Each structure stands twice: as structure tokens, then as C-alpha cells.
């Protein structure tokens, strides 16, 4: 169970170019990437986000390039879970591979507003809106992906992996 955090809410098609603009891709420094996270969409995000906060977005979050700098920038910002109506596929797998939990939940997108405080349980697939006193249910993560997240990402996972 994650702790309670504040919600940053965005719309549909938040693409990797706004999550981390290409002009910052000449670095792989996580802290520097985080300092520009969401800059072209929400210039105050990097300043205001605190560890344990949540990003909530509409459809097709993370569309565009395969740059892992995008989920890295979000994870390094301290975001606990990204919740969206749906994710673009490369972002989806990148997030899991680096150990950034994500959840697809259209009801949460309808019910939760920016600034609401929420709490998430990944194994149960529940999102609790503490501000409104509502609970949204989605699919628990497939076991394989939970194992990846729990291991701390793909690289940690393959460490213990004796060929398949």
C-alpha cells in the first residue's frame, strides 16, 4: 500500500516530448532530467511535486518516443504511481522496466480532481480518494509485471534469472 499523496492531473495524449523535451536529452543525469519534468506542459510541476505524489492523466499517456528519460524523470521527481485512462505502449513497458508503478483506471480519471489526496494499492488494484471518500477498482497488475516492479525493475529481475 502506498502512502497518501497529492494528485497532479493532466489531459489526453501527454507525450514524451512534453514529459521531457528533446532539448534535455543530451544528459542521462536523473536529477537534471527530473528538474525539467513536464516543463512544456506544467512549468510548476518540478518545483511543486513531493515524494509520494501521483500523476493522473487521460488517454495515451506517454505517447511518442521510446525515451526512458520520460519515466525516469517522473520516478526521480518522487511520483509514486502514474494513473491514466490508458498508456502508450512503450511508456507502459519502460515504466515497468524501471520500476515505476502505473495503473490504467478510467473511473479514477473521472472521479479524481487535481489536488485531491489519494492512496493506491497495487496488488489489490484499488485507488482511494481521501478527499472525496471514494474508491475506484481496477485490474491488479499481472503477476509477472508485479514481480518486475517488486524486484526493482527489469535489470534487477534478470539478475536472478537463469535463462528462460
Amino acid at each position, binding site marked *: 500500500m502506498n502512502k497518501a499523496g497529492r494528485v497532479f492531473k493532466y489531459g489526453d495524449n501527454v507525450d514524451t516530448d512534453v514529459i521531457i523535451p528533446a532539448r534535455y536529452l543530451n544528459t542521462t543525469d536523473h536529477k537534471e532530467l527530473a528538474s525539467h519534468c513536464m516543463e512544456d506542459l506544467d512549468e510548476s510541476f518540478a518545483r511543486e511535486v513531493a515524494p509520494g505524489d501521483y500523476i493522473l492523466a487521460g*488517454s495515451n499517456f506517454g505517447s511518442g518516443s521510446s525515451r*526512458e528519460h520520460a519515466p525516469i524523470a517522473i520516478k526521480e521527481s518522487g511520483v509514486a504511481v502514474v494513473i491514466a485512462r490508458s498508456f502508450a505502449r512503450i511508456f507502459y513497458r519502460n515504466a515497468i522496466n524501471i520500476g515505476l508503478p502505473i495503473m490504467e483506471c478510467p473511473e479514477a480519471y473521472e472521479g479524481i480532481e487535481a489536488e485531491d489526496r489519494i492512496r493506491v494499492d497495487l496488488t489489490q488494484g484499488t485507488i482511494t480518494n481521501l478527499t472525496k471518500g471514494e474508491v475506484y477498482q481496477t485490474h491488479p497488475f499481472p503477476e509477472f509485471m508485479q514481480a518486475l516492479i517488486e524486484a526493482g*525493475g527489469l535489470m534487477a529481475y534478470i539478475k536472478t534469472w537463469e535463462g528462460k
Partner: protein
Amino acid sequence: MGMTMTQKILAAHAGLEAVTAGQLIWADLDMVLGNDITAPVAIEAFEKTRHKEVFDRDKIALVPDHFTPNKDIKAAENSLKLRNFARQQAITNYFELGEMGIEHALLPEKGLVVAGDVVIGADSHTCTYGALGAFSTGIGSTDMAAGMVTGKCWFRVPSALRFNLTGRLKDFVSGKDVILHIIKLIGVEGARYQSMEFTGEGIGNLSMDDRFTIANMAIEAGAKNGIFPVDGLTRAYIRDHGSRAGKVYEADGDALYEAVHEIVLDDIEPTIAFPHLPDKGRVFGEFGEIAIDQVVIGSCTNGRLGDLRAAARILKGRKIARGLRLIVFPATQKIYLDAMKEGLLEIFIEAGAVVSTPTCGPCLGGHMGVLAKGERALATTNRNFVGRMGHPESEVYLASPEVAAATALAGVIADPRKIMGGSHE
């Protein structure tokens, strides 16, 4: 229940008789690709493991193409990381400046991908090689690192959409119009997590360059991959470029598709994707006069020889509009050289264009043609997201090389059929 072409390739590479949509599998990789942006991240992750050597030094391709020739010190350091790693691991397919090109044009040209392969690339447009009948898909740097260690990648087996192509494209209409038309039809997430499988006799009327362009933009509809059946033209291409024969997989007759779209090539019009999404396609007559500051012809989508020929045919003996900037960037050194030998570069330069060395450059707003606030570009690239080519308040319109050339001449988004005055020679 039958399998799609993609599912058959994945099953074979997972050592399974059959797979079904949604199944999680580990598949063996024939090629792992990375570039100067994504590979450094993967190399750092690789170096943190206990593994000293990559799984197969012949099955990794490293292409410095995004910010090269290095645009600044940080880019230079990333390129250096790539170069050092390639040297230390004795990577066969590392392409230094001088032999490089934009990765997705380069790999097929060098024969590094053939039909039936499973290829992952830490770049979203890795789906380009579906034109050759391979399963190829974009992944992230961590997948790349894990792929370099294990030679494997995890996949959720995709379901598929079928696009049945019939007929033949009209003059001045090309592969770019086909894919912009399809993305307009199904939307930017219309094929999310799915394969786009192209079928039908119309494919026989599409050049390999057209097929590469179409497969390249499958990701812009959210697809995991786009894939074409292998025909005589594909076989000839692989024979002329490849060192391996490849393996041909065909979809089962009873393969399950989530939807089938009939695409009549004769009906496709020149299509322009308006800001700020690739599915905002419009055709001439649906918009008024739109002045353009910069036209860009090139990229992994439309930087091949056929694309340059199509543009040169329109630009030949003409001058671009005053005040407009035209940048042409051939996708690889070989294309550059061929274009020079054919006299295409001369046509471009005489028309008033600048011709760039192969690089991703302007396509991702990296260098070699970044836009200022309020500027408008029409480009043959594949993305028109906010800020893609520079300032967040600049705009990008996506189109074919034919429309790009016509626009460069007119200074406003222009119909190549009008510019050529119906002289369909």
C-alpha cells in the same frame, strides 16, 4: 484458432507451437539497436550488471544519429560513451560518422534486418522493419540493456488490426499519404498495443520505400508493430542488401483480427497532418492558405532515395519561395552519395535548399534547423507534437516529399498536382 503473421514470428522466437493475444512471452532476439540518446542509458545499466560481455557482438547495432555530428559537449560525451563501449565489446555493427545514417534507414540498407527476424530498438520507429516482413518494435533503454545481456525480451503478444490494400496510388501520392490517411482513420491510439498487419494485392503496387514509410509510422497509431507480407520485391531487396536469407512467415487463413479496414489506394489524396498530432490529417480543399517558414525533407520516414527523387522531380529547374527555408537531409551516406551521383543534390541546391549530412537533426528539434517561437514548418518527418521541432509555440505539419517540395516552391502548403500543372509526365 490461427495466428497472425506477427504471432507466428513471436511463437517461433519463443520456442512455442502457438501463442495467443495477451500471452506474456520471452522471445529470442536477432538484433538489438540503440542510438546516441538511448544507448548511453542502456550502457550504464549494462555496466552495472555482473556481465562482462554482450550476448552476441554481431547482434547489436549502435548508431550515433540523433545529435551527430555532435551538436554540443554533452552530445559529444554521449557519442564517446557509445564509441568506447563499441570498441571494448568489439561490436560489429557500430557505425561511425562517415558510414552512419539514420538508424531505421541504415539497418535495412546494411542488410542487418531480414524477413522473419525479431528486432528490438531503443527508438520508437524501430517498427520500420516491418516492411521487410520482420517483427520489430521500439522499446526503452532498460529493455535494450537486458537484451544485450540475455539476447531476449519480454512481450505481451499483440492482437492485430488488418489493413487490406487494393488498387494503385495516383501520381504525386505516396506511402506517406497512405499512412497519414490510415492514422486519421483510426486515431493516434487506434492500434494501441496491437499489430497493424497490411495485406492485399495493392501492396504489390507499393515500392519498398513506400512500405518503409508506412511501417515507420505504425507507432503513430500507437501500434506495437506494422508488418507487410513478403513478396518478390521484398525478396529482391533482401537479396540485394542482406547477408542472411531470412524466413518467410504468413498469417494463417483463420487468423483473428480485431478489425479489418479496406484501403483503396486509388482513393487516397495527398494528406497533411496538422498540429499537434499525426491523426489530424486533412486533404486539399479542407483548409485555406497556410504560410510556411521552413520545409524539411528527410528523416527515417522519408529520407530515402525514392523520397528525394520525388521531391527533386518537382523542384527541378524551379526556385523555392523567397523567405522560405528548405532543408534536405538524406537518411544515410549511401543515399547521400546516390543522390549526388543522380544529380538530385544539384537540383536541391539550385532550387535554394541546404543539404545536410545524414542526421536526425531537425526531426526532433535537436539541431540543424530548430524552429523559433511562432514559426511554422512543413516536414516529411513523423511527429508534429508540441515543441517537436523547437519552440513550444512553433508548429509542424506532416506531409509527403511531394507536398513538401510543392510547398517549398509556393511558400504556402501546396498541392503538388497543381504546381506540376497536370503535366503528369
